[in-house]
């Protein structure tokens, strides 16, 4: 089932949290709403589920407008951030709950529930109560409970945020696998960019109730449209370009930075006065001479942090701009604090984005 929003507006406490949002999510897609806390992503998810009413606009499940449909008739599987398992029911009864609500008989639902528990690797735990489960197990019960009703749409509200790092990565791949097998259109809410990049077919980066950019993980990371997206997904060095006076089209561009002319590249149309230069930390090289790359800026090393597989450098440019550089390999090991060098980068790494 495909999902579409048409000019959707949602208010919370008389303040519009989401305004005029239009968006289409294709059938079977794993769609992630990524954004900082308070950006409206959970509100949007709850509007889709039917818990938060929309002020205006349409919400289409397939061809059907469901905006007036109460939550319990929307046929949605939802995984809550705190799992919301029924504490007084066993794992089996938790998973069976939705099937009983659909009028399944005990004999009919038993194999379905047990098969689903097998599917999420909880074989043999059906008699346990939620309190006797680990965080990862509870998470999988919540997932099984949402999937067993074979919903048209699966919603997940930061389902991994209460787990430790190792478990999170483990659950990430099992969620990915289960979703692909079931082929259910899924909307996943998170503030963790790595999670979003690893799981999604499509990512919508949200900020202040607006979706700043929609695209595949590669699009979002490699060709960010705005400074916010660039900074939120992956971290970025941003340099404002005050002297830009004319609109910029797609392709190569020569821009005037405070430190002289730079050769840059733009994937998007940009209006004048609203652009800045973005360079990923791993796309900058430090070298003793101006090197072979298209751009080079004099800089000084302020800090050096050895992280094993790579080393992070804090550098400062002559105009006071601070940047972060990630270097791997050993060639740079002799660089030390206070050393003056050149920060070099290619045209394709110097991206123009909306400020």
């Amino acid at each position: 089932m495909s999902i579409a929003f048409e000019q959707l507006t949602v208010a919370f406490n008389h303040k519009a949290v989401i305004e005029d949002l239009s968006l289409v999510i294709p059938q079977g897609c794993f769609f992630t709403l990524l954004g900082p806390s308070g950006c409206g992503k959970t509100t949007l998810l709850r509007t889709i589920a039917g818990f938060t009413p929309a002020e205006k606009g349409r919400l289409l499940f397939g061809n059907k407008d469901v905006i007036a449909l109460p939550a319990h008739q929307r046929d949605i599987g939802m995984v809550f951030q705190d799992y919301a398992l029924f504490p007084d029911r066993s794992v089996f009864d938790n998973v069976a709950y939705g099937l009983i609500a659909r009028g399944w008989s005990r004999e009919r639902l038993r194999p379905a529930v047990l098969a689903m528990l097998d599917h999420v690797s909880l074989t043999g735990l059906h008699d346990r109560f939620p309190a006797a489960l680990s965080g990862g197990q509870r998470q999988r019960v919540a997932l099984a409970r949402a999937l067993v009703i074979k919903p048209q749409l699966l919603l997940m509200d930061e389902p991994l945020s209460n787990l430790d790092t190792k478990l999170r990565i483990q659950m990430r791949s099992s969620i990915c696998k289960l979703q692909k097998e079931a082929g259910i259109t899924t909307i996943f809410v998170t503030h963790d960019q790595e999670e979003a990049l690893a799981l999604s077919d499509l990512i919508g980066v949200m900020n202040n109730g607006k979706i700043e950019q929609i695209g595949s993980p590669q699009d979002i990371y490699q060709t960010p449209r705005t400074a916010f997206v660039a900074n939120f997904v992956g971290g970025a060095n941003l340099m404002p370009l005050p002297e830009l006076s004319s609109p910029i089209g797609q392709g190569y561009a020569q821009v005037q930075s405070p430190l002289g002319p730079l050769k840059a590249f733009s994937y998007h149309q940009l209006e004048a006065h609203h652009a800045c230069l973005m360079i990923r930390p791993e796309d900058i090289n430090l070298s003793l001479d101006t090197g072979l790359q298209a751009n080079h800026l004099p800089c000084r090393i302020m800090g050096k942090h050895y992280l094993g597989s790579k080393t992070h450098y804090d550098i400062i440019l002559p105009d006071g701009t601070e940047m972060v550089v990630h270097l791997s390999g050993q060639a740079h090991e002799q660089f030390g604090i206070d050393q003056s060098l050149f920060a070099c980068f290619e045209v394709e790494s110097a991206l123009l984005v909306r400020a």
Partner: protein
Amino acid sequence: MKGPFKAPSIWFVISLACLLILGFFLLYPLVTVFLGSFGRGGASGWAMVFAEPKYGRAIINSLILALSVTGFASLIGVPLAWCSARYDFPGKVIVSMLPLITLVIPEVISAQTWLMLLGNNGVITQWLSRQGFNPPSFYGWFGLITVMSFTYYTYIYIGTLAAIRGFDIQLEEAAQSLGTSPLLSRIRVVLPIVLPSILSSALLVFTLVLGNFAVAMILSHKIELLSVMTYQAAVSESGSDPALQSTLASISIAIVMLVLFAQRHILSGSRRETTQGRKAVAVRLTQWRGALIGLLAGLVIVISLMPLAVLIAGAFTRARGPVMRWGEWTFANIERVLNNAPDPLINSLVYSLWATVIGIVASTLISYLIVKKRNSLTPLLDYIAMLPLAVSGTAIGISLLMTFNSGMVSMSGTAGIIILAYIVRRFPLGVRNASSTLYNIHDSIEEASVSLGVPPFRSFLNVVLPLMVPAIMAATVLTWTTTVAELSASIIVYSGGRETLPIQIFRLIDSGLMAQASVYGLILVLMIILPILAITRIMKVDLFSQGR
């Protein structure tokens, strides 16, 4: 919720209905009392109160009493709480059961049993005078402060204990690592964080003393006290004066409201520590220190449990009129009460049962509205539901009697007005209990059920209500125990033939018939203690997990 013209939701309609009902039974009587104080045609009650110096003296005496009792109760409760939170000593198990004592022993019974020991005919008084000592009279300040301090210190103990237990021990360790000595770090770091809880329970005790009827009435003798005068104005045999009694009730309400306002201010000003961090591990005290603390704690426990022992002894002791023949055991008292006058027992059972059932259903519904179905009316609902906290039992009795004596709803002389008085007095605590349970049940559980295809109301029945059952059972028992022991409001609204156990006990104490009073007292205590034992031992429900 869709479009500008929406029909009011079903929950809004229910809220409105609840608001009207609460307004009529809780708010309207209080307004009636306040308006009544200005007199109808006759003299204003305020003029009478300002003209007679004895009323001013009564207010000052009441404040002095409340302050002294709060002070002494803190002196007992705070150290006891500290010791039982931080140390392990012989007899600690019994100390941890102290909260039950306040529940099990109604105030009227503690006043009675103290009198049986130290009153003019008391066992100890008589023994002392046989030894040639002439002990001071127990009536008056000495008796009032002693009995009330040992009645109310548990409130301070409970409040302080919770705060000390919730305290993050790492803060104390941080202070010590920064170079303050253990004692100094307790004073500088622990005390400021625990203090708001102590103050807040102390203020509760202060209001309870101000409103106290049973002990004040039995022991005050010639000392003028506000609560006693209010009662006397209401039931005076020379014809009660509506203007005067409502003025006195208004004054006591105003004082308590002022105190509660101060309490709220104190609580909102403090950033209360959440239960994060590490808890202190109780240190085992041995040798003389353990023995000393065990002994002091033991003394407090013995004094707290004394009423029970005296009650049992009194019930089985032969008596001729007011004279107790200590040492001569008999079943005659019990036989006489059960054969000739079991009415108070039956009245208490019936009235409390009704009050418990109605009170629990109503407070659960209202809490659900306040916590889970918030709308523009629910804050007002919350506020009105909490109002009776500020009103002493005597004032509630007066307000109900004045309002429902005649007019639209006439209940005077019926069992209904007693049941209503029970419900009103217990209502704020019932709502508080149920709300704190509901706050602990996440909305997402209900939403999970809805998202799985179960309609909202069925979801509430399916997943929320079962989770509330233990708390509802605990609240039922707490409501039962407090209504069975209720005296100060019911003694004003009851009429002949509708005596409850506490009323009957009070009347017997007044006539000096301690043996019979002990029998009724014992029955009352059993009616309180048996449900508590049933629910905590058999059903394993923690009575105090939800606050009081």
